């Protein structure tokens, strides 16, 4: 009997190892292929072409702008979702989460229909001679649309985890809700808020579908890194690979940084604030 159960245990371990190995190979192979395809010297040269640099610059500017907008608009939403019980909160939560699972192309069409010449907002803007589609602003809006759920989800969770005793203490110490938010709630939830902003930035940096639908593919104005990769695939594979490797490194760095920050809190209270009692 024990021999049989030992044998079973061994088969189980082998099965798990094979499955995990297969998954790692599947995920790792394309990434490894990217890295080994082109020699580093060539990669570097391709990154320094004017077209690549323009895409990189545009990507950095737009993703930083959209992340700032996500924080500015998302923080109040996260605050409301985390602290106020109200009718229809679930609906609002789903609405805010929706862009996370929505195909970006659908988001792009929606944005185009809203801000296009005949769109609801587009018509109003047209009265002032403004047109958003196919501009750099459109790139930022597309990134804002698809990346805000990542920030709001993380910030809401972080704010919700701050112990209610601290909010109560602040209120009894003359702090109106705004003061309490700035001095108590936000500092205690800061690790989650920063993590959410970083996730949101990484998502904005990789945004493709909504951008190409809503902003087009104009080099220097709306052609971000992912779009440049797509174009490169048809004309200049080495450039496409170089930009892909760059995006890969940026994404990997952000995720790794978040993991490390969570494992080794820099401030003594981070552990308590982030995981504190409910």
């Amino acid at each position, binding site marked *: 009997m024990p021999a049989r159960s030992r044998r079973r245990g061994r088969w189980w371990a082998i099965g798990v190892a094979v499955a995990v190995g297969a998954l790692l190979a599947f995920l790792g192979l394309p990434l490894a292929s990217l890295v080994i395809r082109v020699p580093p010297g060539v990669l570097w040269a391709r990154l320094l072409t004017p077209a690549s640099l323009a895409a990189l610059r545009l990507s950095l500017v737009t993703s930083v702008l959209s992340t700032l907008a996500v924080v500015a608009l998302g923080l109040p939403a996260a605050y409301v979702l985390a602290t106020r019980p109200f009718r229809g909160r679930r609906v609002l939560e789903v609405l805010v989460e929706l862009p996370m699972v929505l195909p970006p192309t659908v988001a792009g069409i929606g944005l185009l229909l809203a801000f296009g010449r005949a769109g609801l907002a587009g018509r109003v803007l047209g009265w002032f001679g403004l047109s958003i589609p196919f501009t750099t602003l459109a790139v930022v809006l597309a990134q804002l649309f698809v990346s805000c759920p990542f920030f709001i989800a993380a910030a809401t969770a972080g704010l919700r985890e701050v112990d209610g005793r601290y909010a*109560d203490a602040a*209120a009894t110490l*003359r*702090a*109106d809700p705004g003061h309490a938010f700035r001095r108590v709630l936000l500092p*205690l939830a800061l690790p989650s808020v920063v993590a959410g902003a970083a996730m949101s930035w990484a998502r904005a940096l990789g945004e493709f579908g909504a951008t190409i639908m809503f902003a087009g593919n104009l080099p220097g104005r709306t052609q971000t890194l992912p779009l440049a990769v797509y174009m490169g695939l048809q004309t200049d594979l080495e450039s496409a690979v170089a930009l892909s490797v760059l995006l890969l490194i940026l994404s990997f760095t952000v995720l790794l940084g978040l993991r490390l920050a969570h494992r080794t809190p820099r401030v003594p209270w981070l552990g308590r604030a982030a995981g504190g009692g409910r």
Partner: protein
Amino acid sequence: MLRAAVAKRRGAFALDVAVEAAAGAVLVVVGESGAGKTTLLRLLAGLDAPDTGRIAVEGRVWFDASAGVAVPPWEREIGFVAQDYALFPHLTVRDNVAFGVRAQGLPRREARARADAALERMGVGALAPRRPAELSGGQQQRVALARATVTEPRLLLLDEPLSALDLGSRQAVRGELRSLLAQLACATVFVTHSPVDATVFGDTIAVIESGALTQVGARDELLRHPRSPYVATLLGVNLLRGTLIGRETGGVAHVRTAEGLLAVADPGVDGDVYVTVNPQEITLSPEPPAGSAQNVFRGAVLEIVPEPPAGDRVRVALATSPPLVAEVTRQAVDALGLRPGMPVHASFKATGVKAYR
């Protein structure tokens, strides 16, 4: 001066109390956990809203259900010390204490100076640059008190301020806290489950049981004339309610309780009275007593519990009607062979029974 009458229902629990506390005085609200003490404090602080009632401090109305007034906590000018102190973990001790005056709009430098002075007064000035996580329970308690009082509140609310401390520091802090509260100009409401703290701190003591005040009074009055089962249990006396139905010569009166007649020392009043029987006045015997005791009740021994500290006195719970607790010596227990289930006679003289309105 605090005047409050508030009611709040939450599920099956209902709180309905009226309390008053003079400026400079300490009102202790004492009761078991779950009796509604913390709920009362949260209503006074404005952290929760009463269903009905009115709260006024020094003539300012903080809450009035019928007038639609509900001042938010940050405008109430209170000091609040939560049970576990809730010091902000991301701020230094100094900035914790400065928080309230900063929120009032004082510039940072001035606020920090005020905080340092408050910490100095509490004897913990050296802790100013530390973080709360580095402090002991007693130090946290002093910092929390400094934080709550540095804003010069009109009402100080303390939720079990000593219960988070270990026994050793509790003794020391009790004395300090008492002298601190004596210096304060504002009214203080202090809730506790500890009868010791209630008698140490309370100028006035209010007993809360299941969301209602069962007895309110000055400490001495409360201890001399218990009117609630809680206080009677605390003092270890038998408390009964009844009606005075007549008196005879020799200073003896008769009281009818729900469970029988009692001969009591004539209280000089009529009508409904409280009656206390000191357990030490009760004599136990297997046979009906031959002596002059006017009150004799028969019943089985329920339980025999040694009394601290030495245990040479023993409390004997009896299944008499009304139920009584007697206190006898251990030798008496041995001599009588007392054990649970044994039928005995409990007798006591009318002069050992105190009646009052």
